[in-house]
């Protein structure tokens, strides 16, 4: 995937940068005082570091937004079509104020956008797709999660059979 290195595998770069921070103040700001090649190097690192932190912050917001069952439900609902805040409040059996807070959270994370037409605020899925890498890691996780749910079931079945028939019994 050509996307920037994100939260994973970047600890080393952050460490390098903090070393530079100690030596020469904040990342790029004082780089002109360093030899040119060093400046190029640290500036590249600085930018990369910023990108890492930036994407971390975005991910934190997304994960925060997705950590709540109601908010996931709202996204699921909006995936099927736009809805007003009062529609959502009714569907999820909560107050208008409560739903507004959830929607604001999702909006902050870029997962939902809202539009006020007349007196009705309509919510729709936001412009932001999950980041490529996160999306495929999540896809991969879902794949194994589905598999492991099936394995868990099998293990429990086999364990119960053992308890019933004793360890020596033959399994099919």
């Amino acid at each position, binding site marked *: 995937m050509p996307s920037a290195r994100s939260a994973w595998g970047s600890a080393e770069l952050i460490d390098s940068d903090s070393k530079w921070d100690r030596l020469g103040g904040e990342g790029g700001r004082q780089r002109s005082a360093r030899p040119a090649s060093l400046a190029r190097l640290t500036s590249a690192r600085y930018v990369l570091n910023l990108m890492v932190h930036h994407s971390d912050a975005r991910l934190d917001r997304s994960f925060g937004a997705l950590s709540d*069952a109601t908010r996931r439900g709202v996204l*699921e609902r909006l995936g099927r079509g736009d809805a007003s805040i009062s529609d959502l409040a009714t569907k999820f059996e909560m107050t208008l104020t409560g739903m507004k807070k959830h929607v604001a959270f999702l909006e902050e994370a870029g997962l939902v956008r809202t539009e006020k037409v007349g007196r009705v605020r309509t919510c729709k899925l936001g412009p932001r797709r999950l980041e490529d890498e996160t999306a495929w890691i999540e*896809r991969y996780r879902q*794949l194994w999660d589905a598999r*492991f*749910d099936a394995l868990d079931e*099998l*293990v*429990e079945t086999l364990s119960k059979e053992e308890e019933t028939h004793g360890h020596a019994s033959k*399994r099919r």
Partner: protein
Amino acid sequence: MDTRAREGDPTPMKNLTTVERKSDRELVVTRAFNGPARVVFEAWTKPELLMRWWAPKSMGVSFLSCEADVRVGGTYCFVFGHDGKTIEFFGKYLEVTPHSRLVWTNDEAGDGGSVTTVTFEEKGGKTLLVMHELYPSKEALDAAGTGVADGMGVTFGQLDELLVTLGASAGRS
């Protein structure tokens, strides 16, 4: 579609699956199982048991045949059907330590294939499973990431679809 009804589902004991990209070349998956390591290990090493869980219905593929000669140097071949096509996964076992460790190669991807290490650790009647996949290069891992969707018939390419799934599991997390 009623989200509330699903949220009421009594599934409080679901074990969590975690995935971490340890480095450019490594992925680590962890999961606990409610049973002894011996049983979990058997489920990974007996073809008739493998077929009962490796391709759950939700994956949208059918498990057509499973051969696994689980001993050092032995080979395996899993054949799946999807959309009228068959997909084969095959490789060789490098290490087999009963009830605690399995290592195998994934040769269907040619040179880009990973080496998978699975360890089983029993604690208080539960088994902690750690699956470690080591790819020959970052590019190979990234390519495999793309292939997760294509090869296995699970296409959550769009956020909308992903969210439906997240929504479906909302009550369980």
